[in-house]
């Protein structure tokens, strides 16, 4: 049950250090993104191409997955299907046992976070070692990731130094210089990479035509995990498939620029099945549903499955910037999490998330595959409101807001009323239930003396 965003957000908002870390980090990455996106003269055309490629895959998803399965099998890989998290975890556990291994090295993967793979493996006596620097920090601290791309974004260098000193051997003299901290992680993980027998990864993309699986990363831990072990197990959501190899050209322009604000990330690994004499000699690809087909069934919500997990929407979101990722109580935080989590897990399990937004629209504007995040948020609010039985705060609020926003004339009338200090837009501040909890953590903005629309018309 994830209806706690308003409460969790209050805790986060009270943490000044967290807010400072988040503001510095999200603003830095926004600047970098804007710079490298500005370099691409036809960025909008590229976004449209990305949208079409993902829609093409999704609109005929069954056919593309069957083609992928065939292409991977033809090149010596083994394809497995998993209806849900338990089934995927059971397959991985069985494969690791069959390989006779007691530990695996992992490259950062949202899908394996989502299914709780590390805990499932631990329950079977198998240690899962996270090898991405930020994931290592999170794992050592028994913490949770708070950002899709930079999972330890909520930790500053001094906190990380203290954590490493406490948990990594031979680090008593460690300073908080990031290069030294990275060096300590390198020394700690290197032996594990060189001796690992099983690697576990997610996938950024998989190509139906060629069976190519693609992992995008920076540190080299992805190359290590997908190259050196004898056995490689990849867990991917079924929505990660793209039809053709050349489609990756579009994705590999959209993703690094949107994600880390780089022209290209340091390392991208692509492989297809098994290659004799090069890399793992056994490859298993697990195709994971775990709620994705429910998302696909909603004709409005389906576009959520275009997401390539770049996290640009987190970095521009005024709500995320203030609350951080933990408040979303989900593998997927930020605006994309607010629409993806309720759909994956069922609307009844995350009723407050679609309200964790001011609908300012910044997320939709930066999305590299043009997901209309505000539109899906509003759609989900409507669905939740319909599902709620009895008189609930959200229902009242949304009924009112739906009326308010139903026509331009009424929207403008409501704005005018709010400007005068009363009317439907003001009453948000005094709602009962979850919306009050949400509003007590925020200052209700003082409406301007003249609305933008009035000002525009008067010109």
């Amino acid at each position, binding site marked *: 049950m994830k209806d706690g965003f308003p409460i969790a957000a209050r805790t986060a908002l009270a943490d000044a250090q967290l807010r400072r*870390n988040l503001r*510095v*980090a999200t603003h*830095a990455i926004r600047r970098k993104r804007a710079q490298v996106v500005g370099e691409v003269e036809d960025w909008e055309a*590229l976004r449209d*191409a990305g949208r079409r490629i993902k829609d*093409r895959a*999704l*609109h*005929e*998803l*069954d056919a593309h*997955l069957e083609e992928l399965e065939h292409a991977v099998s033809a*090149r010596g890989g083994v394809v*497995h*299907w998993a209806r849900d998290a338990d089934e995927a975890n059971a*397959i991985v556990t069985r494969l690791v046992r069959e390989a006779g291994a007691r530990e695996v090295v992992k490259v950062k993967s949202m899908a394996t976070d989502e299914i709780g793979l590390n805990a499932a493996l631990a329950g079977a006596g198998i240690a899962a070692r996270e090898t991405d*620097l930020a994931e290592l*920090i999170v794992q050592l601290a028994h913490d949770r990731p708070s950002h899709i791309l*930079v999972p*330890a974004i909520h930790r500053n260098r001094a906190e*990380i130094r203290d954590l490493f000193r406490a948990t990594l051997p031979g680090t008593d003299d460690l300073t908080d210089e*990031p290069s030294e901290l*990275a060096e300590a992680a*390198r020394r700690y993980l*290197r032996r594990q990479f*060189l001796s690992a027998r099983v690697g576990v990864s997610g996938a950024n993309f998989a*190509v139906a*035509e*060629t*069976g190519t699986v693609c992992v995008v990363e920076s540190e*080299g831990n992805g*190359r*290590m995990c997908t*190259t*050196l072990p004898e056995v490689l197990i990849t867990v991917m959501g079924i929505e990660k498939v793209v039809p*053709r*190899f*050349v489609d*990756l*050209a579009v994705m590999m*322009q959209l993703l690094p620029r949107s994600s880390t604000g*780089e*022209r*290209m990330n*340091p*390392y*991208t*690994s*692509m*492989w*297809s099945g098994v*290659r004799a004499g*090069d*890399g793992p000699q056994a490859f298993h690809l697990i*195709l994971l*549903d775990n709620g994705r*087909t*429910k998302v696909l*069934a909603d004709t409005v919500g389906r576009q959520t499955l275009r997401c390539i997990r770049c996290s640009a929407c987190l970095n521009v979101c005024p709500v995320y910037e203030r609350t951080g990722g933990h408040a979303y109580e989900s593998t997927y935080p930020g605006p994309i999490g607010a629409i993806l989590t309720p759909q994956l897990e069922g609307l009844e399990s995350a009723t407050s998330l679609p309200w964790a937004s001011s609908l300012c629209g910044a997320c939709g504007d930066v999305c590299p595959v043009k997901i209309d995040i505000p539109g899906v948020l509003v759609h989900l609010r409507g669905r939740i409101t319909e599902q709620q039985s009895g008189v609930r705060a959200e229902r009242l609020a949304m009924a009112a807001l739906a009326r308010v926003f139903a026509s331009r004339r009424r929207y403008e009338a409501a704005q005018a009323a709010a400007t005068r200090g009363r009317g439907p837009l003001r009453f948000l501040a005094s709602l009962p239930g979850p919306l009050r909890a949400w509003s007590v953590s925020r200052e209700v903005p003082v409406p301007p003396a003249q609305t933008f629309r009035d000002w525009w018309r008067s010109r």
Partner: protein
Amino acid sequence: MAESVTSDARSVVLGRIREALADKPPPVPVEAPHRRPQPGGAAAAALFAERVADYRATVSRCVPDALRETVAAACRRHGARTLAAPAALPPAWVPAGCEVRVDEPALAIEQLDAVDGAITGASLAIAETGTIVLDGDGVSGRRALSLIPDLHICVVDEAQIVATVDDAFVALADSARDGRPLTFVSGPSATSDIELRRVEGVHGPRRLEVIVVA
């Protein structure tokens, strides 16, 4: 038993997908490979060098006759005396005074961990992003070869440079169909996980030397 469970999951998931798509969303046409035709080769070499340098890799340019000396200079910068190399590496690339360990028969992980660096060619290079692409074959070498050593010296012929990422994927499509592993390398290993501050060097080679031959 396990197999039947798996195949059952397959039909269930495919069935769910077909049910979810019961509204028959319109098929989207095949995306034409992009755009922006731009010359590669010599015309793109300056941009390639500039973009590689942006990642804080070292870029050198030389004529074929000077390659051996240029590789030697790269080795001297890093104090490298032993280099792992794919069997297909032309002997003319190997500098005097450097011991080359040829990856045939395949070097063990411990042997790769013990050399000072690796020297390879590439399949192609991308100017707009400063990327080199290795295809696991010939002068690119297998993947572990250019991964484990802490220094990677990569020799790129100017004629191998394409202008854009789009051109690169079009050119690599046959390799992908052949099932060759592809590795895109854009600068040395890096992380920005601590306060978004970029640090060169985590697990991959911490030093990258790119030599463009024309």
